[in-house]
């Protein structure tokens, strides 16, 4: 159909529970994301971008409300099923233990392998495709700590691709990248949305990149979220506040 939302948030409240207190970060979120959406998540530091992304892929539980992936609430999905529907690329670095770029990408197929993690021909084909799509073919056998920041991000995106999920979430993937790498990264993400019909949510502080490549913006401000079209960004008060008047 193409009209089924792949991610639905219904009356969702996000935040942290600490003994005695509840820290509410974002309140009353009602949004739907569809396949093919390329959404930039914008907000000042500490407004809950990472929290939102981590909650959508089940790494954190919402304080209240319901998040559904492909029509099924996360709470009713087995971890392994969720792993086949949403992939996340985080800011954390991985290194050591002889892990190569190929190994990292191959780990994306983990939800599909047997309990001894044996890669069959069909698994390897998917891994190869992910490596080629992300443009890291020449660096596949390098150790993760030998990769530049740009290549590392591409590797982790390849891992997310190998996970064969409808949705891909990325938490500040463009941080530390040089100018050219940033654009290559966003071109790759745009390709995933428009050619492979994936739903991509990317949090980022480079507003000019988001304005140039994304379709929609999810604006996080003052504890609420608002989904706007990129073309409406300059009329949006919250967005212009985040831009600080410099755009």
């Amino acid at each position: 159909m193409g009209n089924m939302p792949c991610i639905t948030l219904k009356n969702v409240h996000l935040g942290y529970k600490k003994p005695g207190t509840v820290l509410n970060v974002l309140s009353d979120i009602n949004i739907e994301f569809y396949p093919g959406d390329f959404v930039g998540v914008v907000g000042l530091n500490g407004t809950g971008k990472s929290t939102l992304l981590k909650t959508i892929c089940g790494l954190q539980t919402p304080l209240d409300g319901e998040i559904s992936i492909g029509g099924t609430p996360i709470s009713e999905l087995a971890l392994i099923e969720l792993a086949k529907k949403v992939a996340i690329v985080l800011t954390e670095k991985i290194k050591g233990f002889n892990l190569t770029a190929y190994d990292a990408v191959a780990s994306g197929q983990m939800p599909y392998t047997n309990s001894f993690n044996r890669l069959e021909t069909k698994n390897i084909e998917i891994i190869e495709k992910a490596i080629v799509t992300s443009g890291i073919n020449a660096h596949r056998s390098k150790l993760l700590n030998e990769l530049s920041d740009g290549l590392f991000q591409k590797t982790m995106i390849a891992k997310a691709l190998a996970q064969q999920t409808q949705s891909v979430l990325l938490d500040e993937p463009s941080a530390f990248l040089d100018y050219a790498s940033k654009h290559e990264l966003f071109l790759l993400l745009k390709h995933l949305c428009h050619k492979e019909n994936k739903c991509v949510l990317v949090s980022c502080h480079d507003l000019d990149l988001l304005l140039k490549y994304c379709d929609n913006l999810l604006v996080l401000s003052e504890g609420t979220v608002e989904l706007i079209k990129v073309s409406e960004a300059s009329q949006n008060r919250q967005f212009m506040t985040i831009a600080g008047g410099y755009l």
Partner: protein
Amino acid sequence: MKNPTSIKFLVLIFLFFVSCALSLFIGGSESLTLRDLTPDHFIFWQIRFPKTLTAIIAGSTLSAAGLILQVIFRNPLAGPYVLGISSGASLMVALSILAGSSFHFFEMFFIGKSFMVFSAVTGSFFITLLVLAISKKVNSNVVLLLIGLMLSQICSAVQTALEYFSDPNNLKSFVIWGMGSLSHTNNNDLLIYLPIALLCLTALLFFVKPLNALLLGQNYAQNLGVNFNRSRFYLIMISSVLTGVTTAFCGPIAFVGIAVPILSRMIFSSSKQQLHFFSCLLIGAIILLLSDALAHTLMRDIVLPINMITTFIGAPLVIYLMFKNKHW
């Protein structure tokens, strides 16, 4: 070379059999030959055979425990001995020997031994949880190592206090046991030791997938469909039993648990934990068998403590790694 991995494995298997033969036939009071291998040869069946089998089990269990700990802590410098886990097990064994001598149930073989094993496992489990809790507060691999050292010192201090106030009989068994030895295990002990070790190692085989996922850290592992908390709990259980049971029978054996997984990663440049699982079993057994052969042959008529040999192999390796600061 068509397939370097399988060639390396074949070499390891060959070395394993050679070191088995060395440990079985050479050393101690007399060297044996194949002609001595009669079904009732006392030295061979009652002394050499249990000692060799103990070396194999101890080497592979400690190495497997080290492999688990290094992955869980995502720290190539982790191991049961350096994190104080062996010391925790030792302390509990000392306590159990003390309790056993006052309640006289050590005269009943299986109950006494099982109680000792259970105490050692409890001790290593508790220390692992403690180190894990502390490790969440520190980011540095080396600081974690220092904390393990401190925990190990605390356990030794308590143990020394116990030794100080114990009667001469107990004191002797504490001290001899504390030096670490492969020769105190007889064929009856092996009836308890071998099944527990085999059970844990088989269980670990079913956790190679979580082990691989844990290399990427908690968040990525969970996003790949691995139940992080549950897997980590079971893995800690397995490594505690592996360390505990070996400490109960052989005493605290130094540096095998940390050095073998590192060696395995140096030999096989792979991140596949299923491969390292098998190679750690082999390398661990080889190292302890060879250490044992060295302990018996380095000085005429004197058997050196096994910990002395393993420390000479393991400690320089750890120092080398720290200097190189490479992330194995």
